[in-house]
């Protein structure tokens, strides 16, 4: 290992291409998966910013919060009375047409809560009070410009009915359609005939502990097959997974990451191959002296290992820097430890695999070539 590292350090210029290639692969992979995770976290923001002790009851087979079909409010009776469970509250989550003050239109997504259960946690108490007024709405400040809203108290129209902006929040970013928070009453009024009478989209049962929520969800799932039941965490995961898989974005980004990995691997193979060929005479001398070939194989593999280590070490600050830049630009990048560790392991594996591939060059070295 010592000779490998010493050689790598002595011939920095030669090996820098390999180190750069590994770093490139690692940066590409970590950022892409971080962006992907960040992107699809947006799809479950309403779930992630409500109480984790809530049990969500929706239409049969619903996999994502934005795909719920109307369910009868009479499902309230199915929850029944349980110790530690508050009476369920209706909740509307539905796309709507937003008419901007300047006349343009865009899509928005209504989040209409009834009581406290469905209110996103970033709302202030003043905003919660303000939302009790009919046709009052709150949206994320990052969406205001897009929706043509410039100040609180400004009015616009949703599904043709006038609404008034009573406040803005941070951290409720949207992917396709801006989230619009309002009361259940406002939401049902805005939905009008689109929501059948005595129907809602979800029922939210708030429990006193996450364990009780899990128990209640399991009980209701077993009892009723004609409705979907999730805890907040389960529904969040289901929503992200649905959009990740159904949009094929995960596959597309996976392919892009694979491409980066292949480019990195090819450059690393070439670097190690060229370095080994450049040392062919020295290795041939060792073989003439009877040094076993496996010693040189191990040296080349350790060189690959060190290239991987240096590449990953170089990639780490670059990833953090680029992620910070992306966040500053308003893009969500989630660099969870699983992404960072997975990226490190995959790129290290790629580097060692490149080393194995480069061993071909060692197999071709014969000491007889030194006798001209």
């Amino acid at each position, binding site marked *: 290992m010592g000779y490998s590292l010493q*050689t790598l350090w002595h011939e920095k210029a030669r090996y820098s291409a390999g180190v750069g290639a590994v770093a490139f692969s690692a940066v590409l992979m970590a950022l892409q998966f971080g962006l992907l995770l960040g992107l699809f976290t947006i799809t479950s923001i309403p779930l992630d910013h409500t109480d984790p002790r809530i049990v969500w009851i929706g239409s049969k087979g619903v996999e994502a919060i934005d795909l719920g079909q109307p369910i009868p409010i009479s499902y309230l009776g199915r929850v029944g009375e349980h110790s530690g469970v508050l009476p369920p509250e209706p909740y509307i989550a539905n796309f709507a047409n937003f008419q901007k003050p300047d006349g343009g239109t865009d899509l928005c997504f209504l989040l209409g809560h009834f009581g406290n259960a469905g209110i996103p946690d970033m709302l202030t108490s003043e905003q919660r009070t303000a939302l009790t007024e009919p046709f009052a709405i709150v949206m994320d400040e990052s969406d205001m410009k897009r929706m043509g809203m410039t100040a609180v108290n400004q009015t616009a129209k949703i599904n043709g009915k006038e609404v008034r902006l009573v406040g803005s929040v941070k951290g409720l970013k949207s992917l396709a359609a801006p989230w619009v928070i309002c009361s259940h009453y406002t939401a049902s009024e805005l939905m009008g005939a689109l929501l059948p009478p005595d129907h809602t989209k979800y029922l939210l049962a708030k429990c006193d502990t996450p364990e009780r929520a899990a128990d209640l969800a399991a009980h209701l799932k077993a009892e009723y097959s004609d409705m979907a039941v999730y805890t907040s965490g389960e529904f969040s995961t289901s929503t992200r997974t649905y959009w990740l898989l159904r949009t094929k974005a995960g596959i597309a980004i996976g392919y892009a990451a694979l491409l980066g990995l292949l480019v990195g691997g090819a450059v690393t193979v070439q670097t190690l191959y060229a370095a080994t060929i450049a040392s062919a005479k020295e290795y041939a001398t060792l073989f003439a002296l009877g040094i076993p070939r496996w010693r040189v194989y191990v040296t080349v593999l350790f060189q690959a290992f060190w290239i991987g280590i240096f590449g990953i070490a170089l990639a780490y600050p670059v990833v953090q820097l680029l992620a910070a830049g992306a966040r500053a630009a308003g893009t969500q990048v989630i660099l969870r430890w699983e992404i960072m560790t997975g990226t490190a392991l995959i790129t290290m594996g790629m580097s060692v695999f490149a080393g194995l591939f480069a061993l071909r060059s060692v197999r071709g070295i014969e000491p007889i070539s030194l006798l001209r």
Partner: protein
Amino acid sequence: MAAADNLPSLRAVHLLKTFGDGASQRTALRKVSLNLFPGQLALLMGPSGSGKSTLLAILSGLLHPDGGQVLTRPNDQTSFVDIWGISEAARDDFRRKHTGFIFQGYNLFPALSASQQLEIVLKWGNNLSPGEARRQAEEMLDRLGLLNQRHKKPAAMSGGEKQRVAIGRALVKNPTFLFADEPTSALDWENGQAVIQLLRDAAHSRGATIFVVSHDARMLPFVDVCFHLDDGNLEEHEIPLVVAGE
């Protein structure tokens, strides 16, 4: 003359080697036989293309002959072993234990110091511990007058120093046989003379059998025996009686 044993340490018997096929076939060695003895510095001369390197490669176990035997008796053993009659693994093991090589180029690792060039052979070839390998490497460099240069890397060495390190690498495991291909070709005569004197000392003081291939006739006064190879035929030549430095 060297203090050679009565029994040779290496016997080549009717070595035959041809290259190519049909009309382009060329015979490099025509039933070549020779005896080399422990403590003997032997020189092989001959015109370019005469088969010198081929003979060296066959004697050292690097190139398979088409016919004949290379019988070796390492460490003064009583029986001979035909190195072309044993398995490839056994032949590699034979080279690892008993042979050293000096090639025309120095072939030193650019990243390693003089001491490490020798240590790598002891650690990888003889499985010595790092401490013992360093001790033996420095002992050898001391004998070669290079102890103060042990931390130098090849880029900082002169041609003579590089060749002495290459000789040290070949001798550090105390081989029974040392094969050298044009060891002075890249050196001026002052350094070349120093190198051949080192080889002579290694043969005479350590009892090694040293076989040198060279065009350099100025080496003749230093060697114990000289062979001449021409068109695949080997002859033993008289050498001058006066040896420089003795």
